[in-house]
């Protein structure tokens, strides 16, 4: 049995043990339901770090933030049609609010709700991106009170994006959410469920067209930051504002951008020298001042410089432009990373989240069988090779673990970097049945070689440890 199956089995047993405890029952039921739902991804970070912007960029519509009386309400965005807002106040039945699809996103009015502290909302939104992801726009991290709220809201998440607006400023607010997410011993032992996002990559490179190149360089270094980058599976630089704009661009905006791109290159560069100059009403430009101001707020200086450059370079249709901005703003990298680290491993991550919830339940609600269940939980966690495999993959990808020559690539492939199916792991041209000669040849060849590496005196301790993990992956295939 793999980790998700073992976990589900354990949750079923816990359900039988706790059949007379309504609260525990509901909690365990949710854990089982988790396995049939899309992956739940929380977007966390300090205030003004671009959480809502990034949520919009991921959803592909302007749905966040969901505000009530000027304060953002923590909100889950899930696939569903028609658009609908459900509010879950603390200690009261959920309430539904009318919502509709506006020009670029969600239009709703929650009015001025009292006591926004203790409630959260869920938005049903028809989007293809939400088919495999449910996204949480988490409350801002920072002070102590908000940390507790954050924990309460992220307890349901399978994975998280931790936003760091400025990696140069090592503030506690920017690393607090990451540490918070790794507080449970199981989470700390297998840090596989977070990605760090440098969410204001454009500002890191002074909003130049090539800002993302600098930002990626900074992200590469940030991966090795103790206590921050090292806890994450990967660190990715994203210009969230441009990314959001790319995914929500409309014809009017595209028209305005095309008109801007027709201005001679040097003139446009001068006009785009600063936000003030570009928004200046006196400026001679084919685009009206109001529209220019709107474009600035939507795309940012980086987005405008990038979009006009791309149009001039030949991205003359809206889809091509959107795709290229998405590419150059890092949002494509982020989606790819989410796919590789989270969606492809959804089962393992869900099992991990369910195990943590179960562990907390067994500790807080004593029961005659709790001890036995807890022992089994410990054995599942200790033997969870899937978690170690994910950590190895991230180590190889970020350079925290290095193997000589082509061994790194092979290790990553065997650990499932190209796909978790046996054929992908063993680099076979098609799916052979497990007992067949080509399968056996590839598998046992790899197994024997990696066993040798695991004991090779040429490799250092960390490398031999990595080799042992690869051996274990091969052994799983041989079962």
């Amino acid at each position, binding site marked *: 049995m793999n980790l998700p199956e073992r976990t589900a089995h354990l949750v079923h047993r816990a359900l039988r043990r706790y059949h007379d405890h309504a609260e525990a029952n509901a909690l365990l039921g949710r854990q089982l339901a988790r396995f049939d739902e899309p992956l739940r991804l929380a977007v966390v970070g300090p205030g003004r770090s671009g959480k809502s912007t990034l949520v919009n960029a991921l959803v592909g519509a302007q749905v966040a933030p969901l505000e009530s009386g000027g304060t953002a309400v923590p909100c889950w965005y899930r696939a569903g049609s028609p658009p609908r807002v459900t509010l879950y106040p603390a200690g009261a039945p959920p309430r539904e609010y009318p919502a509709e699809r506006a020009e670029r996103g969600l239009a709703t009015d929650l009015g001025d709700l009292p006591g926004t502290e203790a409630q959260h909302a869920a938005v049903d939104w028809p989007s293809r991106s939400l088919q495999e992801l449910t996204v949480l726009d988490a409350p801002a991290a920072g002070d102590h009170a908000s940390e507790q709220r954050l924990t309460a809201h992220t307890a349901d998440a399978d994975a998280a994006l931790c936003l760091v607006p400025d990696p140069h400023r090592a503030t506690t607010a920017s690393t607090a959410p990451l540490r918070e997410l790794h507080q449970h011993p199981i989470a700390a032992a297998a840090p596989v469920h977070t990605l760090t996002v440098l969410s204001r990559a454009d500002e*890191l490179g002074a*909003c130049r067209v090539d800002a993302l190149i600098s930002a990626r360089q900074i992200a590469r270094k940030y991966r090795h930051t103790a206590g921050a980058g090292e806890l994450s599976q990967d660190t990715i630089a994203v210009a969230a504002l441009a990314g959001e704009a790319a995914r929500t661009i409309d014809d009017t905006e595209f028209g305005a951008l095309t008109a801007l791109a027709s201005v001679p290159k040097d003139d446009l560069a001068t006009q785009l020298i600063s*936000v003030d100059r570009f928004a200046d009403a006196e400026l001679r430009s084919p685009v009206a001042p109001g529209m220019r101001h709107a474009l600035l707020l939507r795309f940012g200086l980086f987005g405008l410089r990038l979009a006009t450059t791309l149009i001039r370079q030949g991205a003359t249709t809206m889809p091509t432009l959107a795709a290229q901005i998405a590419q150059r703003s890092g949002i494509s990298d982020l989606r790819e990373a989410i796919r590789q680290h989270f969606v492809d491993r959804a089962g393992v991550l869900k099992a991990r989240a369910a195990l943590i919830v179960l562990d907390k339940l067994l500790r807080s609600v004593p029961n005659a069988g709790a001890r036995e269940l807890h022992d089994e939980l410990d054995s599942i966690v200790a033997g969870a090779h899937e978690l170690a495999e994910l950590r190895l993959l991230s180590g190889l990808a970020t350079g925290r673990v290095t193997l000589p020559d082509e061994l790194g690539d092979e290790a990553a492939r065997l650990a499932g970097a190209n796909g978790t199916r046996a054929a992908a792991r063993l680099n076979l041209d098609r799916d052979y049945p497990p007992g067949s000669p080509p399968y056996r040849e590839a598998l046992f060849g790899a197994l024997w070689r990696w066993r040798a590496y695991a004991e090779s005196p040429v490799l250092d301790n960390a490398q031999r440890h990595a080799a042992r993990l690869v051996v274990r992956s091969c052994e799983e295939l041989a079962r």
Partner: protein
Amino acid sequence: MTASWLSLLDEAIKECTARDRPDLGWRLRHRRHQLGRGKLRVVVLGERGQGKSQLVNALLNAPVCAVGDELTTRAPAVIEHNATPAAEIVSAGGHAHALESANRAAERTETPVESATARANSVARGDSGPVRAQIGLPAPLLADGLTLVDTPGIAGPDSPSTAAALSEVFAADAVLIASDATAELSETELDLLTRISTMCAAVMIAFTKIDIVPRWRDVLSADRARLAQLGIPATVVPVSAAVRMAAARSGDTVLNGDSGFETLLARLRSDWINHAEQLNRRSAATLTGMALEQLSTPLREELTATRQADSGPAVARWRALGRELEEVQRRSARVQTVLADEVADLTSDVEYDLRDRTRQILQRADEYFDEADPEKSWHEFEAWLTDNLAAAADANITWLWERFDGVAGKVAHMLSPADAELLATLPATEPLPEPDTRVRMPAFERFGAAAKLFVGIRGSYGGLLMVGLASTLVDMPLINPLSIAAGAAFGIKAVFEERAARLKRRQASAKTAAQRHVDGFFLTYSKETKDLARLLQRALRDHISEWSEQRRAELTAEAKSVKETIDADSARRTRRERELTAALQRINTLHARVRSVSADASRGSPLGLTA
């Protein structure tokens, strides 16, 4: 005015050297060196990545400092006016205050101006101690007497980089803080501002990067509100280095105006450069005040401590020693009495024990001789008696030793629980002489054949006569078989009776002999044990007296030395108090003069107090 200033500084430097604070001395000397040149030193501070180096470049309109997207500035750069561009890299080269002394021990390397900061940064990246770039430029702003210092970014409120930045502030006349428009003032920046505004009144904030943030005006007003709320009197000037650079390239004056640098430069001139003399004086006053404060704080603390101190522990020790001496005397007297009592008890107990043991032996000897014939079993008896007496003596003496051991332990404990082990060791004595246990055998009269015959004949006479006379009545002769038989029977009986009587006599005399022997043994042996007890008592008594005497001598000696220390200490304290008061008086006077001059300086204009 300036001269009086410098003399004040000189006095402060002298004071630092006198008070053994060369670090402060170096700092002041460094500052004095700078002040002597009449420059206005402006330090550019800020968190990492706020565009400090870019700000310096834009102020000078020249790419002097290396800039980049990643952390670039690692070493401070000092930019001054010079007729021709020149640059050098100054490194401390292992000398602690080399950079502060400004012109000695430091190692200097000439280098092209364009790459000076880049080279200094790469040197600083290595592990070669403090380093900075020293650059001279013929820029108009610098010609007005300004010195700009670009610094590495600050990491957090408690990091070493913050401490380094604050130490730069001490050597500066004014502080220009770079904070970018992408975020409101962070906790680190506010902390820095709060600390600086208490040290240096001339603070200005350059609100950088306004070219890339559409909503920078919102951030600016939020920042100004926060500063007003915290009561920090700092001007905030929004600027864009990128726009200024672009304006310089294209020669566009409108664009240059947009960059905000004209405003910033105007503020620098009106607020700072035009009041350079006052700022100089005030910053030097702050630095001198700080140095004097640092000098006087330990002195004040020491003075308080000296006044409060009364050689407390020493006096307490002295009193304790006196008490202990009395205690030792009292105890040793009491212990001697206890010892005498205990030994008297012990002697009587031991004697009774010996008496009891010998009595039991005698009892058993009596019982033995009730049955046995001493003549036959005397040797056996003698061995038994010897053994038993020896055993009794042994048990008795062992008991005596044990009891004495107990007594010794008891009195030792009473005398001094700490030294009990040592005291309780009993003195060694001569072993007791082996008691004389040989028993003299009493003379037993022999009952030989002749005696038996005689007794038999004497006994048979009666029987023969009695039966012979009776038989004459029947006309039988006096001597007839019957009378002979009766005579024989009577003779045999008489022999037997005599033998029994003799045995009784022998037993009685054996018992007497045993009794006498045991009595003798008891007498000798009890005398010896008594002697031993007395010997031990005497030894122990002497031992205790000796110990007490020694202890008394020790205590007296220590008390004497403690008393001497107390006297010396109090004398030294009085002397030290006088010294400290004098030194503090001197520093305070100096401080007051510094303050009065600094007050003169700030009366001129409300520097930096406009927001």
